């Protein structure tokens, strides 16, 4: 099963290497990873998407917790949470497909963030399924380049990570 795990870490030298090394060294799968400092600049928050059966995910979270620089780990799979990702898509804009590109962008509540004579660049944010659906819809129109972020996640309601 696919799991979304958020990790609060000390914002120290080499901490990212420790986390990614843990995944590669123990053969855990890592689908995406995003990192940025939190409000408190001494900590960073990572969101990791990984896959595995219950026993593996139990090991993943325990092993993460065991790293000295890890402050807290949350596996969101058992709870209701908000997830967001972002994609930038550069598409060929021909006179005959411009309207379709704009229509798709509107349906997905995206934004055109850059325009040239031959290209449109569109930004879409949202849950992963939405971002993926947008990419699928726009594909036939001719994607030139795509940049997609790792996912970030947060619990609903009062609960927090840090």
């Amino acid at each position, binding site marked *: 099963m696919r799991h979304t795990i958020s990790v609060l870490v000390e914002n120290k030298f*080499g901490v990212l290497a420790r986390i990614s090394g843990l995944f590669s060294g123990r053969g855990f799968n890592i689908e995406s990873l995003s990192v940025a400092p939190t409000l408190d600049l001494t900590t960073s928050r990572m969101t990791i998407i990984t896959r595995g059966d219950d026993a593996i995910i139990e090991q993943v979270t325990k092993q993460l917790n065991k790293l000295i620089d890890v402050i807290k780990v949350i596996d969101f799979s058992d709870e209701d949470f908000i997830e967001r990702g972002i994609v930038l898509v550069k598409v060929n804009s021909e006179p005959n497909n411009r309207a379709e590109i704009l229509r798709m962008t509107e349906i997905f509540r995206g934004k055109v963030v850059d325009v040239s004579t031959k290209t449109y660049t569109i930004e879409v944010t949202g849950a992963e399924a939405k971002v993926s659906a947008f990419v699928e819809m726009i594909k036939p129109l001719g994607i030139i380049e795509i940049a997609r972020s790792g996912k970030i996640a947060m619990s609903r309601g009062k609960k927090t990570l840090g």
Partner: protein
Amino acid sequence: MEYTGAEIFVKSLLKQGADLIFGYPGGVVLPIYDELFKTPKLRHILVRHEQGAVHMADGFARANGKPGVALVTSGPGATNTVTGIATANMDSIPIVVFTGQVPTGLIGNDAFQEADIIGITRPCVKHSYLVRDVKDLASTIAEAFYIATTGRPGPVVVDLPKDVLLAKTKFEYPETVELRSYRPTTSANKRQIDKLAAALEEAKRPVLYVGGGMILTNAAAELKKLAHTIQAPVTMTLMGLGSFPSLDDLCLGMLGMHGTYRANMAVTHTDLIVALGARFDDRVTGKLDEFAPNAKVAHVDVDPTAISKNVPTHIPVVGDLKDAMKKLNAVIAESKVDWKTKHKPWLAQIDEWKHANKLEYVKKTNVIKPQFVVEEIDRVTGGDAIFTTEVGQNQMWAAQYLTLKRPRTFLTSGGLGTMGYGFPAAIGAQAAFPDKVVIDIAGDGSIQMNIQELGTAVQQRLPVIVVILNNGFLGMVRQWQQLFHGNRYAYTCMESQPDFVKLAEAYGALGIRATKPEEVGPALEKAIAARRPTIIDFVVDREENVYPMVPAGSPLNKMLLA
């Protein structure tokens, strides 16, 4: 007043109560060596190879429970420590390894003798630090020792750039260390302890399965109390040996690949296996699906990742083992169970197994059997010595035939299986206990991996005795070739061997050779009486095998017995 980083290093170690360093100098750590020159209180043992320094620090730590310290220079000095660090990591041994580093401004420039030792050792340390500012030095050293010695212990690397050693600041050593991201669970949950006690009350065929954690937490007395009170048999892993007396009636000996018949049978038939500071290593469990097939599993460990990693656990207890043992003993003391009666049939069954297949070998009068050498070591020392081993057949015979009485008397590389560990570890143990008899039970292959440390032993007058069970083979590998590869002895025979007696003499040590069984005892007595570094070359039966043996991937009850 302001001090240089090098001065702060020395002051911090003294504050920490670490008064012995195993080290090897080089360019970037010269400022530290200059301070050591002025600080005789902080003793330094000059090794011959940095791997030796780390194994010595490790042997020192295993023998006396205090963290070991190694100090090396940057680049090759640092990379030479890797095997030692990985060895300590696998066996959860508290050591702190200080490596020199090129000045911070040159890091990443492929500077002379630069190596990214933090990167290289990342997967095999408990934690590591690159100190970039002299202001962080004292607190980093305090954290390093704290992390190395608490929770599940392990090696910590501290990388020290040369400019940090030269820069100046005030010296303030933290009295205590608090880390928001590291708070090992030390107190065992009482409800889980109650569950474990209840399971013991119910079980008909319990086994206490004890690992290195019992030694690390100094809980042998609590183990004895528990086992005797509940009349439960105790089996130990290689790392657990010494935590329960070999000659106790309840002792099953070691389990696993080269475990005793009765230990492996007991584990196969138990209905409750209580893992105490052990981690269900594959050399212990054999084929995992058939390991303890009828058993409920209880597991006490300070490291949550060890629990349910290999074997699903019914009763997990996270916490310091000694704390857990004390609490368990307290609960058991209230129990109304008549343990002796309850376990009588089980202990009778075990006794039957004990007599069915004992540890045995064919005694000969014309050739020395390696097992006989270990038995003689046991007899001559009365078990009153610290033993280390190398890796291979020598290690397994030592594990099988020594009768250990106390923890911290059997030091061996269990997790990594590092040939070349035993001799430097013995030097480290001897440095911790100069008056004890320290014996490295070695193979002819392994001893050549760190033989250079003879120079260290002689220089320091550390009377370590190396007993080589010289079979002229990389014996354990040869055994596998014989049993599983159609007798094809590919590259396991060292046709050219040094004359170990002359080699010892060349280093200024004592060299003894024995080729006949009747020479074994006298050779050992002579070595022990000499009180100087000694190598005894026992020329043993070349193709002797270690039995019992559970072939890799087989269940524990499918042992080859001869």
